[in-house]
């Protein structure tokens, strides 16, 4: 019998990768700094030693090249896991992602499968500047042909990673860096850590998790902002006796629109929090999916807390002003509730 273990998101995801690699010889990892370094954010920590350089394959700094290679390997029946340390780098490989990996299945009318996982580190909040702090969730989710996974806690990180590796679809696994709980980013966010079973398990894509049940207001967050919502909900509860329901979609593609709608139907109020640039993004999509189904379920205008369409400044006070925070979520919630 194994004892209960509380893991970080990064450790839990890595455990799934390890299990799949031990049990399926078609699974391998490639990317920058994966072999000796274990991935810039520890996603492949120790895997190099365990599986050797042929299955934990270091690549040159050639993103369009190695994502193209991974696509081909997947087309040939392998299950590559590609590590791209920063989502900000998609600028140099967006073609391989959206025109190769995400298109072959549909264009071939289902003849060609691309069972590949693209792992990337996203998000800011630690003064890493505008080119190493973006979320870019909408830029990934907007393009058809990929699944986009966004775990907010360790339990989901493991289950979703098992699902991603076993999926016959191209899966983008977006790991928020502050949520990952890696050493270099300080103390892990408490609510991101969870008890993780030893044995493998899967979590289906497109099924939201109700993080907290409530009756007065629905908050929808994604990855890092889930935790900001939790903090905000606790404060609203203790300071104003407001009961908040928090929905974590866990995958933004496919998006569990039903779960979001059902919650808003119950509470009548919707706030969406996202770290990405606000316009044309996740917050608008979530709100629209409720409004276009039945606007009458809303008792007041919905609210959103996201990056107000600004490049992310380096300096702490400015970065904290631009990125979403629990404070902003509380503030917006109070406006909606007339407090």
């Amino acid at each position, binding site marked *: 019998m194994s004892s209960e273990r509380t893991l970080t998101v990064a450790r839990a995801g890595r455990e799934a990768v390890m299990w799949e690699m031990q049990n399926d010889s078609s699974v391998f990892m490639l990317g920058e700094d994966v072999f000796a370094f274990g991935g810039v954010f520890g996603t492949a920590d120790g895997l190099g030693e365990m599986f050797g350089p042929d299955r934990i394959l270091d690549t040159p700094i050639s993103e369009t090249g190695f994502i193209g290679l991974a696509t081909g390997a997947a*087309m040939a029946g*392998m299950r590559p896991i590609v590590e791209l340390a920063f989502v900000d780098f998609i600028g140099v490989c967006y073609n391989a992602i959206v*025109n*190769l990996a995400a298109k072959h299945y549909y264009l071939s*009318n289902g003849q060609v499968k691309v069972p590949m996982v693209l792992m990337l580190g996203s998000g800011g909040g630690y003064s890493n500047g505008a080119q190493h702090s973006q979320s870019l969730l909408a830029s990934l989710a907007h393009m058809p042909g990929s699944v986009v996974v966004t775990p907010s806690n360790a339990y989901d990180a493991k289950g979703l990673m098992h699902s991603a590796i076993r999926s016959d679809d191209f899966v983008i696994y977006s790991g928020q860096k502050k949520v990952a709980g890696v050493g270099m980013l300080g103390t892990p966010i408490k609510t991101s850590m969870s008890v993780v079973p030893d044995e493998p398990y899967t979590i289906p894509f497109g099924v939201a998790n109700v993080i907290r049940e409530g009756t007065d207001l629905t908050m929808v967050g994604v990855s890092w902002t889930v935790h900001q919502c939790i903090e905000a909900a606790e404060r609203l509860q203790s300071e104003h006796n407001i009961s908040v329901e928090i929905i974590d979609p866990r995958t933004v593609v496919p998006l569990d629109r039903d779960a979001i709608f059902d919650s808003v139907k119950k509470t009548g109020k919707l706030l969406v929090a996202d770290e990405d640039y606000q316009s044309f993004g996740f917050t608008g999509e979530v709100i629209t999916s409720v409004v276009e189904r039945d606007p009458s379920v809303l008792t007041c205008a919905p609210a959103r807390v996201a990056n107000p369409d600004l490049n992310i400044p380096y300096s702490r006070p400015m970065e904290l002003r631009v990125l979403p925070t629990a404070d902003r979520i509380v503030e917006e919630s109070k406006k909606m509730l007339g407090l």
Partner: protein
Amino acid sequence: MKPTADQRKAMYSQIVRSREFDDRVLELYFADKMPVFDLAKGVIPGEIHSSHGQEPCAAGTMPHLSLEDTITSNHRPHHHAICRGLDLNKLAAELMGKKTGYCAGKGGHMHIYSVEHKFSCSGIIAEGMGPAAGVALANKMRGQAGIAVSYMGEAAANQGAFHEVMNMAGIYKLPYICIIEDNNWGVSVSKKASTAIERNSERAASYGVYGEYVEDNDCDLIFEAMARCVERARSGQGASILEIQTYRLKGHMHGDQMAYVPQEEVAAMKDCVVEYRNKLITEEVLTEEKADEIVSQQKSEVDAAIQFGLDSPYPDPDDAFQNIYAGVSP
């Protein structure tokens, strides 16, 4: 390794087959787009990049590849698809956006896929290289037979993907061949204006791979050069760049008047259908009669394929919602 008489006849046959196909496509393409040219009109809508003149690049290389091998093609895929042995009916139907096409109309001229032929395309310049090299990597990792070949134009060698993928093909010693069809033009920009070196095959030195250049679109020399590259790939000696001087007879795409190509260059362009036929007749591999027989045989197969396409139904509009994901409901 020189091609045998039978192999040369077969290559001629393939060149003719591809040409007959492109000729019929060309005819149909313009038949219903006039008097005011409209890309959206007609039984074959959209852009068409025909293979007129470049057929030997496929006909001379494909005989060395088996169905274990993988091919990625580019925006100009007809000669590759035909010489690979794809079904003409399904190919014609795909160009017409019909339900009976290889991708049931989802792909079109620049996106032909056939899993049984391990054949796929990317219309984005040089981006077919990564997937081909990736298949080579997968085969190598699993200890499986099978090499991978990508086809592209000489202008694609100026893409970042070319550098990235060739570099990795060198590092990992991949059983991969990058075939460059040097037709001297990247749309309207000449090779000379695009790169300061004469031959992209020389770039092989910078990746630690093998490079070879074949002059004058000669099908026999292409066959021989490809034999060397394939032998290297199959025997674990790694990747190659095979560049072939060829001729783009009908411009970048149908409708391109090639006003930017100097007159003397146009006059000097050689037509491989004529050249190779004459060569084989002179060398007594073929007679006029036998050559005519090949032409009429291929012509009738192409005609039947075109007719198959014309007679085929369009997909139901709602078929657009099929095969979006392999396992997920969107």
